[in-house]
């Protein structure tokens, strides 16, 4: 992502490893390998990939909820990974997180008012109770709830309302960066679009930057200005939204798009077409060379030998030895119907 002003968030060569036991043997699982990207103020980056691709590990490492094995995470020029506990806590008001399961992310014994107001108690201790209460009420109204909800407990709310509460809690300190880990996935169709619209509206109004983790490509297309495609912890493609969705450069991105379900029934022949065979391999035993090669229709001998570097091809950054040949192929005609 080329942004002229200093980026709000600059991630450089981020690695996340987990220590695991396999058949009694200790081993390192490389969940995230060498991931770099930048995000300017007001931009939103979608991170997509299958389960096990390392999406959530990136989110957690950005906020230091899991330790990074290597790399740097610059937030407004400061490396978050080097901060002391005290400095990090101060920084957290600018970095907030929304989880997939809203009910699980709320304390079942705290009223909505206390939940949403707690970050203020934490980060603006000088605020009077009356001022805190006024801010809390205003925030609840901004997410479509009202003052009558203040004293209720989380179990009295539906999933969509609980996600509104989680959004209110995350935004009440006016953070600069919001990390959303599958924020829409657990919601019903009719509620999902309400929450997606709310998030986008608040993002625009507050000038928020967002890291939006999702397996739902259509949701990412709606919510994000840029997209990072991840596979087995490595960046396959990084591009602005429009080039990515109209002319995906990486075979994996193309396969993900092709596997997405249609909006309407397709002619019988098209149904036989499946985007990708097999499943994502174990991160404990990633393939040599290009990690995607075992499922790639374009793999050649070189792909097993040599790991492709992320490089500019057309309007994307693509990690594929054959990206130039692919770019010459006609764009996908699979989403129609």
């Amino acid at each position, binding site marked *: 992502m080329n942004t002229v002003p200093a980026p709000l968030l600059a991630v450089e060569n981020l690695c996340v490893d987990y220590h695991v036991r396999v058949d009694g043997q200790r081993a390192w699982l490389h969940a995230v390998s060498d991931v770099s990207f930048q995000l300017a103020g007001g931009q939103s980056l979608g991170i997509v990939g299958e389960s096990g691709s390392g999406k959530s590990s990136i989110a957690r490492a950005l906020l230091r909820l899991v330790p990074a094995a290597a790399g740097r995470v610059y937030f407004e020029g400061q490396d978050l990974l080097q901060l002391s506990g005290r400095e990090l806590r101060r920084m957290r008001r600018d970095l907030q997180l929304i989880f997939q399961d809203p009910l699980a992310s709320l304390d079942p014994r705290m009223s909505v008012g206390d939940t949403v107001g707690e970050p203020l108690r934490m980060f603006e201790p000088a605020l009077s109770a009356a001022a805190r209460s006024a801010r809390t009420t205003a925030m609840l109204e901004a997410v479509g709830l009202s003052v009558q909800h203040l004293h209720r407990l989380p179990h009295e709310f539906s999933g969509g309302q609980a996600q509104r509460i989680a959004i209110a809690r995350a935004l009440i300190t006016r953070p600069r960066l919001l990390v959303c880990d599958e924020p829409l996935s657990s919601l019903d169709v009719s*509620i999902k*679009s309400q929450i997606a619209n709310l998030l986008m509206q608040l993002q625009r109004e507050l000038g928020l930057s967002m890291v939006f983790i999702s397996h739902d490509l*259509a949701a990412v297309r709606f919510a994000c200005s840029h997209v990072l495609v991840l596979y087995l912890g490595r960046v396959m493609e990084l591009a602005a939204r429009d080039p990515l969705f109209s002319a995906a450069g990486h075979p994996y991105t193309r*396969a993900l798009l092709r596997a997405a379900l*249609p*909006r309407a029934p397709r002619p019988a022949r098209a149904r036989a077409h499946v*985007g*990708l065979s097999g499943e994502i391999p174990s991160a404990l035993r990633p393939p040599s060379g290009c990690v995607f090669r075992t499922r790639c229709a374009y793999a050649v001998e070189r792909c097993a030998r040599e790991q492709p570097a992320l490089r500019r091809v057309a309007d994307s950054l693509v990690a594929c030895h054959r990206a130039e040949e692919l770019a010459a192929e006609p764009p996908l005609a699979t989403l129609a119907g």
Partner: protein
Amino acid sequence: MMSMALPQPPDPALPAASAVPLLRLREVCVAYPTASGAAVPVVRNVDLQLAPGEILGLAGESGCGKTQLLLSILGLNGPHALVSGSVNYRGQELVGLRTAELNAVRGARIAMVFQDPATALNPYLRIGAQLIEMLRAHARVSERQARERAFEMLEAVQIGDARRRLRQYPHELSGGMRQRVVIAMALMASPEMLLADEPTTALDVTVQAQILRLLRELCERRGIAVLLVTHDMGVIAELADRVAVMYAGRIVEQAPVETLFERALHPYSEALQACVPRLDGPAVQRLASIPGVPPDPAALPRGCAFAPRCAYHLPICQERVPPLLQTTAQHWKACHYEGPLGRLRDSAA
């Protein structure tokens, strides 16, 4: 197809498949009693038919009663549920059957495919043992015959290296592989019908596409009918022949799949399609959406349950429940509004 003694269809003298539905539901209601005494209705007067080999999609959001309806077919709603109406399977009434009689149908004639393959399989038993148990519960076959059948079924669901897989435990398989095993298990006793509850919801998109294709191929090749419950209109579009849309316990629209996607007549069916973000077309700033949340089954509004959220509601909608009426040969809707839809589609920008 098989030489061993598998359960046979009950009555070979039945008329041709097309004339008689495999399954016919009439006025099925499911309710749960509450502490206060009043029963909460979760399925209300559902009529449905399923022909042999047909894939019927049952679409709706959480709490609309689609899973409860599915469970009512095999009497699986639990001991407290109040189930009424008729579930007629090949002429046999299933509602009110004793457990022993139902067990002759469950798994053998009508098998289930659950959402989460991780919990549908027993973690302590090898794959082979679970598949074999499924068959031997319903048919008098030897262990060896059953094992051979298990091997065939794993191959049928395109699991490679099937001999070795039989000796593995569920945790040794990936999520997609486990769902294939769950489908293989459902096929063990050669059922005529599958009840599939969100069969791909727990899977990744790439694996979902594979499993949907597998289900379609199996149905076409073996003539198995499927009742498919899902919240995802994409899954419906990909797999179903016909669709019934449920809201607040009732079927609000029913049509062939192409018809429902081209000319939905119920505002809720329109909403289910319009609210989903798109991968094609111009980028939008706002998604179409419908306000509010589905009603609490214990406090249903008078009249049409969807009226409080409906962009087209009329005065009558608050007064009278719209009956499910036939509009054309294969199209049914329960809505008072007769004008054109399209407001939701146009509201996105």
